[in-house]
């Protein structure tokens, strides 16, 4: 292999699995260390810069960082990255004076945001500080998009939502609530310099089966029903309710139903529980609330008697032990459908220059988020279909950068390179600026409200979050993957001390080969292919140093045992390029 080019900003970034896996590239280890130092405000701001909604995401983020967390490969469980985010949000003081300053004098550019969800709000938070005038339009009564209308209060209290949404609106965003944009053609006449479409994927899928029309009053599309609950238009549901679907929306529907009188609510899925789309922790919480999940049932018919829904008929689906047997009737009086969402743009005319693919999705450049009409940008669920909040935020940052480049007359495809920096950590022989000791505690459980109490009140937050002490202990589980082991080949005398001390057998000295060959010849073959190999130039004995980054504990022992400081522990800071930042 060629020697690793550590000047490529993505190399060491890849080693920080959590940050790399976070769509917004939040500097996770940095904020976790700040929590360990009880610097909650600083930890909050590190988060805010990347993900804009630390308090919200610290509760309801989809956490793509956790399955890839290195800790989860050296022992059973990943670091509770998401819960730690909440620790800094819960314990911070008033941080308002640390938010970006908004210039009195505007830059003369005006942009519009259609939809008030996390994607649009992120665009606003990046562009307001640059002097843009920002108008936000949403058909709801308040900003937040689906986070407000869908995510139930027992998972996310309204207070937390309001606080973080208002940080952005208070920058001076001009809001136009309860305003549905029904024609893009007319809207474009308003002469905005750029328009960002962050309207989400607002159409819940229906399930057209016999009985659907007669049962209309008892059959609800899940996301519409959840919104009605959030806005208090609906306050109860039948005792016997069925929720159809196995994603996170289904989990929210059944848990909300349980709190509104649906004591006998059950979830119906077509496949097996293992293959459900919902996040593992959402399934866990659902089961914890004694809601059964019935597997391998495929809906056939809504059963209506005397104009009322009395049950639903199901076929035993493929994989069921009862496959081929008679269909089964499950009695119920209401049904919630949670079988997916589409993005829909009935309000965007076909002849205005914005083209769509055959699935009705807008044609968008995946890097710049620009549509085929150059001043119109898309992001969040509106861009590539339903995803999650943190992805919407990531889109928002990129789209804001594009809008800024576009309005400065620059090429939106020429993205500035991310800012990166390596900083030495050495204090003495065995002393480092960072806490290099690896703590061997297991992941901490998050405390919860007693079940009897929480299922009576849909507004009561179920999770209590870590307190400061547990937060500290959990923070110390993080193994500082941003503290890189940097190899200085010219200093190495090939004494093997680093190889011998490394607890997880990362370091090897051997004859070079191609990647596949090298991976197979390491002391322990490197078979986690998405983890990079760090390869040096030739050493005096004709060998190369090859480090498998996969399970490096960042413990610094290699650097401590190296007699010549050929290994250094250096903190890698990587920040994505944002609008207006140098």
């Amino acid at each position, binding site marked *: 292999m060629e020697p690793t080019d550590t000047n490529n900003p993505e190399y060491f970034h890849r080693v920080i699995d959590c940050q790399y896996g976070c769509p917004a590239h939040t500097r996770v280890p940095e904020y976790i260390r700040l929590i360990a130092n009880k610097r909650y405000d600083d930890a909050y701001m590190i988060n805010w810069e990347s993900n804009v909604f630390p308090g919200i995401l610290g509760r309801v983020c989809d956490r793509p960082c956790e399955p890839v967390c290195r800790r989860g*490969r*050296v*022992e059973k469980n990943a670091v509770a990255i998401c819960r730690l985010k909440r620790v800094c949000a819960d314990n911070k003081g008033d941080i308002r004076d640390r938010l970006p300053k908004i210039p009195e004098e505007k830059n003369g550019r005006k942009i519009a945001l259609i939809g008030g969800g996390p994607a649009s709000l992120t665009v606003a938070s990046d562009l307001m500080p640059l002097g843009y005038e920002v108008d936000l339009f949403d058909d709801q009564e308040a900003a937040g998009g689906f986070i407000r209308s869908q995510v139930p209060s027992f998972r996310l209290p309204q207070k937390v939502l309001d606080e973080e949404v208002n940080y952005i609106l208070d920058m001076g965003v001009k809001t136009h609530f309860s305003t549905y944009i029904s024609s893009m053609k007319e809207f474009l006449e308003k002469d905005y310099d750029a328009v960002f479409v962050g309207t989400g994927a607002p159409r819940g899928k229906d399930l057209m089966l016999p009985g659907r029309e007669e049962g209309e009053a008892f059959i609800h599309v899940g996301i519409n029903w959840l919104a009605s609950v959030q806005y208090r238009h609906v306050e109860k549901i039948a005792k016997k309710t069925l929720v159809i679907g196995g994603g996170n929306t289904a989990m929210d529907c059944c848990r909300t139903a349980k709190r509104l009188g649906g004591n006998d609510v059950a979830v119906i899925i077509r496949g097996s529980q293992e293959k459900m789309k919902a996040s593992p922790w959402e399934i866990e919480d659902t089961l914890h609330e004694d809601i059964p999940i019935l597997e391998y049932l495929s809906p056939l018919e809504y059963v209506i008697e005397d104009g009322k829904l009395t049950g639903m008929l199901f076929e035993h689906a493929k994989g069921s032990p009862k496959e081929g047997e008679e269909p089964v009737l499950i009695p119920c009086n209401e049904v919630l459908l949670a079988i997916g969402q589409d993005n829909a743009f009935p309000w965007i005319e076909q002849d205005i220059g914005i083209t769509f693919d055959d699935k009705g999705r807008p044609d968008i450049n995946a890097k710049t988020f620009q549509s085929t009409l150059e001043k119109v940008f898309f992001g969040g669920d509106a861009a590539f279909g339903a995803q999650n909040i943190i992805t919407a935020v990531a889109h928002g940052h990129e789209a804001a950068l594009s809008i800024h480049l576009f309005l400065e007359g620059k090429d939106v495809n020429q993205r500035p390179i991310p800012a990166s920096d390596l900083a030495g950590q050495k204090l003495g*022989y*065995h*002393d*480092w600026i960072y806490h*290099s*000791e*690896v703590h*061997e505690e297991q992941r901490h459980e998050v405390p919860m409200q007693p079940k009897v109490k929480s299922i009576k009140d849909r507004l009561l937050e179920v999770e209590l979050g870590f307190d400061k002490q547990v937060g500290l202990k959990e923070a110390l589980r993080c193994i500082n993957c941003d503290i890189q082991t940097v190899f200085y080949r010219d200093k190495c*005398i*090939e*004494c*093997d*001390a680093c*190889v*011998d*001390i490394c*607890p*997880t*057998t990362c370091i090897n000295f051997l004859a070079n080969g191609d990647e596949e060959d090298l991976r197979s010849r390491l002391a*322990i*073959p490197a*078979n986690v292919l998405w983890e990079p190999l760090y390869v040096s130039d030739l050493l*005096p*004995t004709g060998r190369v140093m090859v480090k498998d980054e996969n*399970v490096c*504990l960042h*413990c*610094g*022992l290699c650097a*401590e*045992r*190296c*007699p*010549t400081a050929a290994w250094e522990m250096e903190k890698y800071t990587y920040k994505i390029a944002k609008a207006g930042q140098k």
Partner: protein
Amino acid sequence: MTYRRPTFRHPNLPKNDLGYTKRDYEGGISTLCAGCGHDSISNAIIQACYEMALEPHKVAKMSGIGCSSKTPAYFLGKSHGFNSVHGRMPSIATGANLANRDLTYIGVSGDGDTASIGMGQFAHVIRRNIDMTYIVMNNGCYGLTKGQDSATADRGSKSKKGAPNPFESIDLCELAIQLGAGFVARSFSGDKQQLVPLLKAALAHKGFSLIDVISPCVTFNNPDTSTKSYQYVRDHSEATATFDFIPLRMEITTTYDKGTTTPITMHDGSIINLYKSDDSVDVTSRRAAIDALEEHREQNQILTGILYISEEMRDTHEILQTCDTPLNTLTEEDLCPGSTTLAAIVDQYR
């Protein structure tokens, strides 16, 4: 501040025939200087014992005094050990081996511990052919007492202090061959590819085996002017022949060309395959081995690998015709023939 080694290991750590991982052969964290060759040898011992699937509780580590003699604390943490007096490891090992012949004995010593204060003991443990693997971690100096030249330092070699050593050096390998050792080898701490199989072969050898491992003292004796430095050893070493060690349990899958390969069957049935080239040394001949050592010395070359091997020799227990049961497990009943038998014996002499 750390000085703890995390207990996490690679999730795919392989297991040996006993179901143990390498971790089961580790010891405490080393307190030697960073980069000390001795640490590499400790790790080679861990690797060899792991690969040989020795039962840790059936190994005894014996040592004297010195940085080298401290290393048994850093490997085989679940084995027996005796950190004895300076230069006296051989007599402790002799006693232990006579008392319990069932253990595998690994002696660890330094060049000071062996070639200075322990020289007398060294000679006699070889003469008696105690069944043990004697490892000299040879750095040409007294590391623990701050780097004075030792008796293995070559004449003219300059340590960190800078003054050339005025005295002749002792070649422990040559001496051991003369004294009748059946397995003599030399290696380098920076070459595990050679050292690990050598250790395995030495452990399989019945009787005394010596491995003299050049092991740079990074703190006091590693300038390029020292003949025991990383740089010098790398530039001046040459191996007798390449070889493969095939443990007893392993199936032999490759076929060897008879003309160039000499197989040596060891006492326990393992095989060493020596690969010959035109200029390789006949390591089965004492005289040739000593000649080769002398020739290389004249050319300022360090000869490494197996220097001499003979599987014909009898170890102490065979020489003394002791019983198969370890002496320390014999009970009074086994040892005392009873008054009737005793009386009969005494009667013979009346």
